């Protein structure tokens, strides 16, 4: 027989451990936000003590004002949100359709192609960056002013190469395999085309995996650094991570760096919180099945 007291103690211990773990994850964020409010000298002094995590001393929003002066912050944020948003949406459409074709439609070479696709998961992006750059420099584009050559300095070169990727297709393939096959067969017997089955049956049942794929894709895209650095020379097309460079040129101002980082973290947190519920549901469900 366990007394109520012992049970309460156990619960308290469990929460204490959870709070501690949560704090470990939250501290860097708190440090970032607090530091963004302090002048450089105080920031460096505080960083050796717990004061680094507290809004004490000379607190102001000066760093933010300075950050906006040093770099076109809104341009970078706008670019990142645009590139990330468009890529995430297109990626969900293309990769889910690919997953659908791999799982539900019977066609020759299906398994071989899926194996090749999955093999691309082990290739780091850095290995294909240079060949991709050479291709991008020579691709034709049909714009309003006729055919032009080269995709450098544009949004599209930051979007198109990342729409389809093995990992996202793989996520959809795994999820679709767990959907009851009889639902698809029932829809086929009822006369639905593959497109209708995709749109009316499979997609409405794919909420959790869409959220998961969206979050993973969002993080990858929002954190892009190497590729945009290679393909954009014009400030107008650069995303937030490339923008970080502006704060390390000439004299490094840590307060401004922290202010800039705080600003660009906001969209990520907002997006994550928005999809959090589905994301956890999806991870939990795959855990049960796996």
């Amino acid at each position: 027989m366990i007394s109520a007291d012992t049970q309460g103690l156990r619960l308290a211990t469990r929460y204490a451990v959870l709070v501690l773990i949560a704090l470990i994850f939250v501290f860097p964020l708190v440090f970032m936000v607090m530091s963004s409010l302090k002048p450089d000298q105080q920031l460096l002094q505080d960083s050796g003590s717990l004061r680094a995590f507290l809004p004490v001393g000379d607190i102001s929003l000066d760093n933010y004002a300075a950050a906006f002066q040093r770099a076109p912050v809104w341009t970078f944020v706008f670019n990142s949100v645009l590139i990330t948003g468009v890529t995430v949406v297109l990626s969900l459409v293309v990769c889910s359709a690919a997953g659908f074709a791999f799982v539900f439609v019977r066609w020759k070479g299906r398994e071989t192609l899926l194996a090749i696709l999955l093999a691309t998961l082990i290739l780091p992006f850095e290995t294909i960056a240079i060949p991709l750059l050479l291709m991008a420099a020579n691709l034709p584009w049909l714009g309003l002013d006729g055919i032009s050559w080269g995709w450098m300095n544009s949004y599209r070169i930051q979007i198109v190469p990342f729409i389809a990727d093995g990992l996202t297709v793989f996520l959809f393939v795994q999820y679709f395999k767990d959907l009851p096959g009889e639902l698809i067969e029932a829809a086929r017997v009822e006369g639905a085309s593959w497109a209708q089955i995709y749109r009316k049956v499979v997609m409405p049942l794919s909420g959790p995996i869409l959220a998961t794929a969206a979050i993973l894709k969002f993080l990858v895209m929002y954190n892009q650094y190497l590729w945009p650095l290679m393909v954009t020379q014009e400030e107008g097309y650069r995303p937030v991570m490339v923008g970080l460079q502006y704060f390390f040129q000439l004299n490094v101002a840590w307060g401004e760096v922290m202010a800039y980082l705080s600003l660009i973290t906001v969209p990520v947190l907002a997006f994550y919180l928005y999809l959090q519920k589905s994301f956890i549901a999806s991870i939990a469900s795959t855990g049960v099945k796996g």
Partner: protein
Amino acid sequence: MARIQLKDLRKSYGNAHVIKGVDIDIEDGEFCVFVGPSGCGKSTLLRMIAGLEDITSGSLTIAERRVNDLPPAQRGVAMVFQSYAIFPHMTVRENVAFGLTIAGASKAEKAAKVAEAARILQMEHLLDRRPSQLSGGQRQRVAIGRAIVRQPKVFLFDEPLSNLDAALRMDMRMEIGKLHKALGATMIYVTHDQVEAMTLADKIVVLKDGQVMQIGTPMELYQNPANLFVAGFLGAPSMNFLKVTVQAVNGNTALVSNAALDPVEVSTRSASFKAGDAAILGLRPQYLSIAEAPGRLQGTVALTERLGAETMVEVKLKDDSSLIAALPQDVVFPVGAQVAFDFAADKAHLFAAP
């Protein structure tokens, strides 16, 4: 007119032959039941008719049209699945109307047909619910509703009642029977439950290992099983099989006996025997009656099961084989008691020994 003809239908996965040349003729409006043990290929055969499995060879015609290579939607069939397969993200109304929505039916037409289906299946009050709020029986109704709104020529049922509990299964069985009479459509029904087969079917197809064992009306199959498999598969409890020796043959009858059985003359039907052959004598438990001594079969009681209206008696015969008798009254036999049974010779079946 939706007559369905299967001619030498075959299905193989590589070297594994699942359906090995099946010929079945199903008349328009007929209720045909495919029955057999698990793995006999009955569901595969149904899925081939639905268009969900490719046909390796042979021909399949529905309403005088060869449909081998047509997609499911163009075959004019509706299917009810064992797992119901109703769409969890749609209401009952949307589920039932799904086929009509796909076909681009007008709102008024959809509303009218859904209302009609709901009336037939008595589920008007469920139309705005989600599948997760329904019981198993209600889900099955929705699945049937989805099948009937399109007014297909052919209905395919794949073990539709096997996920329901016993009481509900009987209700739904009767409803499906009524539905068949009301709609007059051709129906093919797959089951491993012989009671469903016997009660629903106009025609039963018994399958084993991808081959047809026998086709006929329930009573034909019950009274004249073509082989040991059919004889043992239909009827509960199963038919008793006694190993006997043929003593003499006289035209269409043969005199058989064994250590526990006094010589009896039984019909050979179409099979041919000669004196000295080993054979199997099939006796349905229901056709055995307690004999005024001495009786044709003697043995000792091993087990009695009293079911109220009838009694099952397991008897150990003199040659150590055992036999079950279903007696249509409540009787009590102590274990070890001596009993003797009689049977009408024209109810016995003689099969060649395997």
